[in-house]
């Protein structure tokens, strides 16, 4: 459980001559989660995208799964990213979208896996509807289904509870808990301190491009793990 999944040292990235990230440093071990908080426009989403290799970075060191990641931003199949958008085709059904992702990630036994994940996010009845007919909350659940399907070790969740109803929050919180219990890691951004306390092992605030106000959390999650 002591394996380091992702480690950043002095990570920086400029946009339009202005530093968005300047000297972000942290390390995340397997089975742990880091909650990143911060004001709008503080660079939370940018941080996740840099960690995921969607964006490049300009300074510092980024290690993923023990190997240095290239500064240009190279994707890695072991990373699961949940962004503001669902990353799925609105004109395909959820099942078709998941099939596509399953094929891209070369998942064996795709049909069975899809069946499992749509059940877990409680969308089994809707899986053969095109995504464009989904409500905002259902789309978020669908995005969660995609995340579960590709079976990544490191989750990068950008406000994963946005638009979800209480039921959805509970389901997805459980999913995150299971993921961490199985030895996965997660970096999560959120605005709500309650979420951070409930689900994070560590929390930090992203402020003028760096992580500050670190706090170790012994929230409900850790308690449940022990109990």
């Amino acid at each position, binding site marked *: 459980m002591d394996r380091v999944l992702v480690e950043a040292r002095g990570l920086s990235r400029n946009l339009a001559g202005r530093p968005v990230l300047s000297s972000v440093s942290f390390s995340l071990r397997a089975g742990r989660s880091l909650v990143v908080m911060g004001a709008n426009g503080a660079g939370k989403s940018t941080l996740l995208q840099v960690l995921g290799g*969607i964006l490049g970075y300009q300074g510092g060191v980024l290690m993923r799964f023990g190997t240095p990641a290239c500064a*240009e931003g190279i994707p890695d*199949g072991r990373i699961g*990213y949940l962004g503001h958008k669902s*990353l*799925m085709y609105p*004109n395909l059904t959820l099942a078709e979208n998941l099939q596509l992702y399953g094929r*891209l990630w070369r998942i064996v036994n795709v049909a069975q896996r899809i069946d499992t994940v749509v059940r877990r996010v409680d969308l089994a009845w809707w899986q053969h509807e095109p995504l464009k007919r989904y409500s905002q909350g259902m789309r978020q659940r669908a995005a969660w289904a995609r995340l579960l399907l590709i079976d990544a070790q490191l989750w990068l969740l950008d406000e994963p509870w946005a638009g979800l109803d209480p039921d959805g929050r509970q389901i997805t919180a459980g999913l995150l808990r299971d993921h961490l219990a199985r030895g996965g890691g997660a970096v999560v951004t959120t605005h709500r301190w309650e979420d951070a306390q409930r689900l994070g092992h560590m929390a930090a605030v992203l402020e003028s491009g760096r992580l500050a106000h670190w706090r170790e959390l012994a929230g409900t999650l850790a308690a449940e793990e022990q109990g």
Partner: protein
Amino acid sequence: MQKIWTLFVKDMRLEARQKDMGFLMLAFAMMETLVFGFALDSGGRMQTDEVAGILWMGFLFAGMLGIVRLFGRETAEDVMVGMAMAPGGRLPVVMAKMAVAWVFCAATASIATSVDVAVFQVPGTRVSVIVVLVMLLGALGLASVGTLLSGLSLNLSGHEVLLPVLTMPFLVPVAIAGMEATGAAWRGGRPWPWIHALMAYDLIFMVLPLLLYEFLWEV
């Protein structure tokens, strides 16, 4: 390779469902033929070169229509991010898009050729092996230039307006070479120098996206 094929099949399936790209291009090319047919209304009085010109103009504009929409399906929900994050990286994503664009352009070109030949009925114009070859090469030029520029301008604001303006000068050489080669083939002249020029241009713009694909989408 498997990733290219998966993505290619996916785009074809979306086309079958939405008919928003290949079908649109084809419809546009047909309309264009129709308009020229009305405007010129010349049963056999037209020259072979004029038919070649009309054919390539229609093809060019239909191709532009497709190029502008090439990444349109992905932009709404940021699907490109998901595709790029999949194992195998970004190169297969670019190659799959190029293949999709080529298939649609080639289909539009071959159907437009047959229709133009049938509608204008100018002696000498026919669908020969050489003409089909020229069309396939022209489609390749459109597809490779289009993939490069469409991918590049994907995240720019106002790319729907920017892209046609930007693409046109890059496609003019393709259109000129294609027009000349088609005209020469129908006149019984020598199309080969133009076909070679077309091949060289295609090659340059096929290699360029493959060299620069890393820089196509980020930021």
